[in-house]
């Protein structure tokens, strides 16, 4: 690719993509506008052009995949060339920007419409929930879906199955408070004698088929088992559920999740439940590398209840935050003109006091 072609291709990309590309290449890149950013990128990559080009191709690829995965209603679909090398020169503006700026912004009335309670419906599991359970019958599973999607359902169904096969289930959560809530919830569901809880100094129903504990307690059990002191019956352990597995990245406690996963007995299935994270495939690939069976990944980014974003001015004026009713994924610049104006006003008025 010539420098000119590369520059044209960069020009066609949304700023967010350019910022991602700039990570690690340019310091304080968030301060630069699009034009400046492209210049800096070209400068910074003078030595390693192939690196920049391949990263760019990967980002474009990733973005187009994301856009295909997203339903049409939530966001305008920018057309991104799937293979950058084939269509480098194009001077017409990017379609996404065309769309964003020419379609009239959503009105407050539209934005507020549709509030309400959905009609009660019989429970039908989502496709991803069914999929996760099917995969779990075969192998370890990592689930990474947005907050509030229904991960608990997967945990409960998987527990029921394991219990039917007379296998022990361990459910871990990062916090004692969460363990307590789950203990109450699961006791109600499975019957109190079926559910036990283990903390540092207390054990209730330690012989129950479903045991709830924090990840630290499970790690300690695994230490003891490895040291030859069998405590809880790990030989019948059939399933380990780790809720909120994104804690793997916790600066202080993340290591405990790693240890637990490294030492988890190979005959037990793993079910990792996580909020949306950027690289769930890495987790699945890692587990595939260290566990007897390849680990399946269930991920999606679509929220089950659509989200809208708004801006509320201190004078109580409410407006949509973006030009679109839904969240314009990948296009943070599509601000609603009214929100833009009000916020500029806010910055103007509170400006002097902020610098004090």
């Amino acid at each position, binding site marked *: 690719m010539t420098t000119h072609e590369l520059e044209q291709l960069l020009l066609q990309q949304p700023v*967010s993509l350019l910022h991602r590309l700039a990570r690690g290449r*340019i310091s304080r890149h968030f301060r630069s506008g699009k034009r400046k950013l492209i210049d800096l990128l070209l400068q910074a990559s003078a030595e390693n052009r192939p690196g920049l080009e391949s990263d760019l191709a990967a980002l474009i690829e990733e973005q187009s995949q994301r856009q295909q995965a997203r339903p049409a209603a939530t966001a305008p679909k920018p057309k991104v060339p799937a293979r950058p090398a084939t269509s480098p020169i194009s001077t017409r503006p990017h379609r996404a920007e065309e769309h964003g700026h020419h379609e009239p912004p959503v009105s407050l009335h539209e934005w507020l419409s549709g509030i309400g309670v959905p009609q009660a419906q019989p429970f039908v599991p989502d496709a991803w929930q069914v999929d996760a359970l099917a995969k779990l019958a075969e192998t370890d599973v990592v689930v990474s879906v947005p907050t*509030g*999607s229904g991960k608990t359902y997967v945990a409960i169904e998987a527990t029921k199955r394991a219990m039917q096969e007379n296998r022990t289930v361990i459910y871990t959560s990062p916090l004692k*408070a969460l363990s307590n*809530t789950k203990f109450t919830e699961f006791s109600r569901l499975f019957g109190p004698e079926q559910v036990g809880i283990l903390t540092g100094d207390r054990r209730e129903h330690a012989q129950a088929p479903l045991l709830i504990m924090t990840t630290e307690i499970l790690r300690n059990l695994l230490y003891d088992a490895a040291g030859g002191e069998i405590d809880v019956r790990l030989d019948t352990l059939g399933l380990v559920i780790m809720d909120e597995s994104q804690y793997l990245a916790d*600066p202080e406690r993340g290591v405990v999740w*790693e240890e637990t996963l490294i030492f988890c007995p190979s005959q037990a299935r793993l079910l990792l439940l996580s909020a949306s*994270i950027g690289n769930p495939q*890495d987790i699945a690939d890692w587990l595939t590398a260290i566990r007897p069976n390849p680990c399946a990944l269930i991920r999606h980014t679509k929220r089950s209840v659509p989200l809208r974003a708004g801006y509320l001015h201190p004078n109580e004026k409410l407006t949509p935050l973006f030009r679109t009713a839904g969240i314009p994924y990948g296009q943070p610049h599509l601000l609603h003109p009214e929100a833009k104006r009000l916020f500029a006003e806010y910055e103007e008025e509170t400006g002097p006091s902020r610098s004090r």
Partner: protein
Amino acid sequence: MPPSIHPVDLVATLRQRNLTPAIIFLTSRRACDEAMQSFERSQVTLPKAQQDQIARVLAQVTEQYPSIAEHPLIDTVQRIGVAAHHAGHLPSWKIAVEELMRTGSLDAVFATTTLAAGVDFPARTVVVTQSSIRKARDFTDLTASEIQQLAGRAGRRGKDLVGFAVITPSPYIDLTVLTKGLTGQPEAIHSQFVISYPMVLNLLKAHPREQIQSILAKSFAQFQLNQRTAVLETKLDGLRAEMEPFGPRVCSDWITQWQVFDQARKRKKPRGLGARQESPDVAARLHFLTPGRVVGLTRGRGIILRQYRSKGQHAPMVTLLRDGGSLNECPASIVTQVFDRTFDCEETSAYPWCTPQTLEQLTHHLLDLPPRLPILPILTHQNEEIPLDSSIIQTLGDFACPTCPSRQACQRDFPRASRVRQDIQRHMKSIQALQTSLWHRFQERIDVLERFGYLNATAQLTADGEWARLIRIDHSLLITELIRAEAFGAIDPPLLAAVMASIAHDDDRPGSFPRGSAGLVTLLFQVRKLAESLAPHEAPPMLRADVAALTERWVADQTLTWIGLARLTTMAEGDMFRLFARTIEFLSQLKTLKATHPSLAESADQAIAGMRRGVLEELP
């Protein structure tokens, strides 16, 4: 215009727009409490039916958690349908608020952004008033993951057709951080693997030292290091391809050959004026001033980020990350000592010469370094280049180069080829470092444990190691050393609980507290001294005497009620609860030493029994 909307007006607007129930995230506990106070003065009152519902739900939760009944805000919550939920509250109260929210009885909750993931606490609307949060005494921008976790609570499945995330500004808000977070991808997560003393003891209990490396290789940390290795290997392939045209010539290692010849040739000539020589000391050090190296300076210490030559004078220069977090470019002579300590440094080709993550990690490492570090002994050569035997110089005529057919090619290609070769060697070193760093850190821990006598020379657990491995909490080295120093001889349960509390507590929120007993003061003095002497091997805990005294009171005076205790201090109830819960956790580890330290285990058991009363008994 006010700098931010008044809480009462905010809730009124949300009600009017049918956007309740809402969770309103505020910057601090204090802000949440003040928001609640502003409602106490307001005239709003809920319709009777909703008030009754709140009362019903509260009564139900109170059956399980009696302490809720004593909460001072119960009446306000019932009257106005608004509550606060933050870490200053008792867990039981938080459970009550969560239950009220789940049953749809409240209109709004003021919460801090620490609201834990996984707590089932959804609403129709989430209000965000900030774009940064306080982390380790510093304000950092919210990440996309964090913003999406907050916004993710908006829109309850089965109860809402749509959810709303509303941003309302307050001073210091940066709108672009929020819009980017809402529309962006959550960040990738990175391994936070650290090797602790208990980990080393427990691994060596179950596996011989030879197997450890293969166990560490199974970590997510190594998985991600391997990903970085793969990137470097691709680069290495590229460099090797670049090297190909310079392939075998008359001599197999022509680059070195030419270098030696060239040096010898130049040395015969009188030294030019331009070629300024650095002192042999500096020259010898240069090889060690590689990215990630910790060095001593005339004042303070620093970590090298890059080594280069100044443009004009060609003087050796370094880019340094210094104690205060500043980045300086200075002459290499500023380095007074080279320490035997390097950190991973993911280099980049532009300022600040490493990735932002590396920079952040290094800044932390620099703060966490022990006061004393081993110094790397450096042999100083008199010449800065490959030391040449004078006989070689004498017999310059013996070199084949002057008459070699590829002489011209060698002379022409040398600068590029040697640069590429250097790059290849640098990459190979980095790859080597990535592959062995975990094991090195593990070995460092082994060395310390061996020096203290928990491991023998073949890295097997000694008698002390056997019980010490059961202490699997932070500050484990301090605790096991205290036990070995018999600091806990025939210790009273209140005193033991107090010391453990001071070790366990890691919050520096100030407050006023009761005074501790004379015995506690003396004991804490000893603990502090030991902790300081261990500082090179383990970061000392805060060892706050005030929280220790509070704990001592609670265990010593069994007639003291929770409310009575709360009156003795300005510490928030939630913080008191957390302090005690963590102390109990630490004590329960001492309890596991029954076989080797029966009286200590017994005392720990009694201390736990003494602590578990009132609200501390409500939760398992």
